[in-house]
């Protein structure tokens, strides 16, 4: 009895990184990504905080900060689920099938894609935070800024997985629609666009269990000068598990059929 040959002769990490790099490049060259993924959240943030006036000086500052976090989270969320739209497109072009007849192990393709998705979360995130600091004069400590970036970047992972799950499961067109639907629904209910304080009571308590709300809360906690709460972390981990399983199941199903 011979032991089964190892799946690849190449060391795994380099090809994963090369694939992620290829995907990051492709995403950054997409005008749709630059306009809707990055410019739009910045524009919405500036509109929401400068039009109509959000009360007195104190209230204004508070809203400038909390909306900054909300819109940064919204931008990151959009880029994260957008990863799936790219996957569905590649599937429809036969590119995923083509990758399956290269020595790249299929898992590395998914991981590379997730990694690329994590990187493409950064432009929107950084752009909104920059607009907060430079245009709206938001002042935070250096450690707070760094914590904001790291937490909102890492916290986007469940949404990348949700997008990947949709991308492997659905057709290219459906994925686009479903991803935008997920994005809008989660963003609005999660209080990224308007503060949950404006919601009726029942919706406000529901919001606390939605992933986008807890995702943004990572950032809101930082701006309040505290660490993210245990409940926030627990709810996010639960969603990470749900979306992660969804991505794995979708991927396995597509490997059988695609």
């Amino acid at each position, binding site marked *: 009895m011979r032991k*089964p*040959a*190892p*799946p*690849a*002769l*190449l060391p795994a990490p380099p*090809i994963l990184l*090369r*694939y992620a790099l*290829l995907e990051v*490049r*492709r995403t950054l*060259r*997409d005008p749709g990504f630059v306009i809707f993924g990055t410019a739009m959240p910045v524009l919405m943030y500036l509109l929401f905080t400068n039009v109509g006036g959000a009360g007195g000086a104190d209230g204004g500052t508070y809203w400038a900060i909390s909306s900054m976090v909300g819109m940064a989270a919204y931008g990151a969320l959009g880029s994260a689920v957008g990863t799936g739209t790219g996957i569905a*497109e*590649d599937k429809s*072009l*036969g*590119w995923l*099938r*083509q990758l*399956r*007849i*290269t*020595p*790249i*192990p299929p898992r590395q393709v998914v991981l590379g894609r997730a990694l690329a998705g994590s990187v493409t979360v950064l432009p929107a995130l950084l752009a909104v935070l920059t607009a907060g600091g430079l245009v709206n004069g938001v002042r935070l400590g250096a450690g707070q800024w760094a914590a904001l970036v790291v937490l909102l970047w890492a916290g986007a992972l469940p949404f990348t997985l949700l997008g990947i799950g949709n991308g492997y499961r659905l057709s290219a067109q459906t994925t686009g629609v479903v991803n935008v639907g997920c994005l809008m629904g989660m963003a609005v209910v999660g209080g990224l666009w308007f503060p949950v304080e404006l919601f009726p009571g029942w919706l406000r308590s529901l919001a606390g269990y939605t992933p986008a709300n807890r995702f943004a809360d990572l950032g809101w906690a930082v701006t309040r000068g505290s660490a993210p709460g245990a409940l926030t972390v627990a709810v996010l981990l639960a969603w990470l598990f749900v979306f992660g399983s969804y991505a794995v199941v979708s991927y396995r199903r597509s490997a059988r059929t695609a």
Partner: protein
Amino acid sequence: MTHMEDSAPAVSFDGVSKAFGAVLAVSGVGLGIPRGETVALLGRNGAGKSTAIALLLGLDEPDAGTVRLFGGPPARAVAAGRVGAMLQDGRPIRRVTVRELVTFVASAFPRPLPVAEALALAGLTDLADRRVDKLSGGQTQRVRFAVALAGGPELVVLDEPTAALDVEARRAFWASMRAYADRGNTVLFSTHYLEEADSYADRIVVLDHGRVVADGTSELIKGTVGGHLVSFDLAPAAGLRTEDTGDTENAVNTEGAEGAQGAGGLLVRAEDLHLLPGVVSAEVRGGRALLRTDDSDATVLALARLGAVRRLEVVPATLEDAFLALTREAVAR
């Protein structure tokens, strides 16, 4: 790897079947392709070519039988970078340049071709820095070819590689393919173009309704259905009338035919044509008998004896004749 695997054929199918629902796409296929051979897979749409290729590449699992590449399961050969393929309907991804795409694919293989060489083989040197999604259909096809070769695979599988190419591009493509095969690589391609199979393959495998209906050199396959095509005008006697409605043509041919019939009292009934020596199959079209024969001399002599040599023609059967005969037979079966 053991010695046995070193000498194993590039491709071997043993009793391979695959059904999709009630449709048996591939049925009991047995096939061996030694290393270094160039093989054409010929068949009509839906004959099972693409399914056979998907099974070969390990993209699909057979319901029965085994597929082996270089003596092992397809997945192992793919993981070892010994296989490259140009899939049907594959379209290149967007927002990458030709060079970026080919470089990336090459980097996934343990023994890739130099990128410049892969680009040159596919005729893409001048297009290397263009975006893949900005290319024409024929240029896109060449990108897919470069992707198939980039890894320097020992076995190249091409599913209808020249479908979108014009005549000149097709010729250039086959020159590159030849060059790659001449390095000792194995090539399997499927095509609709019979002349491509005829001119570029060492061997042709004809697939119909999921079965191998013929397998051999082009000459051998032409031979199986009758090496020559003998045709002549039928006399307009009652016995020769067929369901064919070529009445006008028959009328035109009548004058010439009268004399011979009067003198010889000839009667070759259309339904008896296949009884003539050498004849493999017979058909009447537009008042003309078309006989496929594997002994054209004997057939012609017999016809002469019967006095039936009106506008007689003898031409070697083409691969197309053979292909049509083979696949039509399978329909009737």
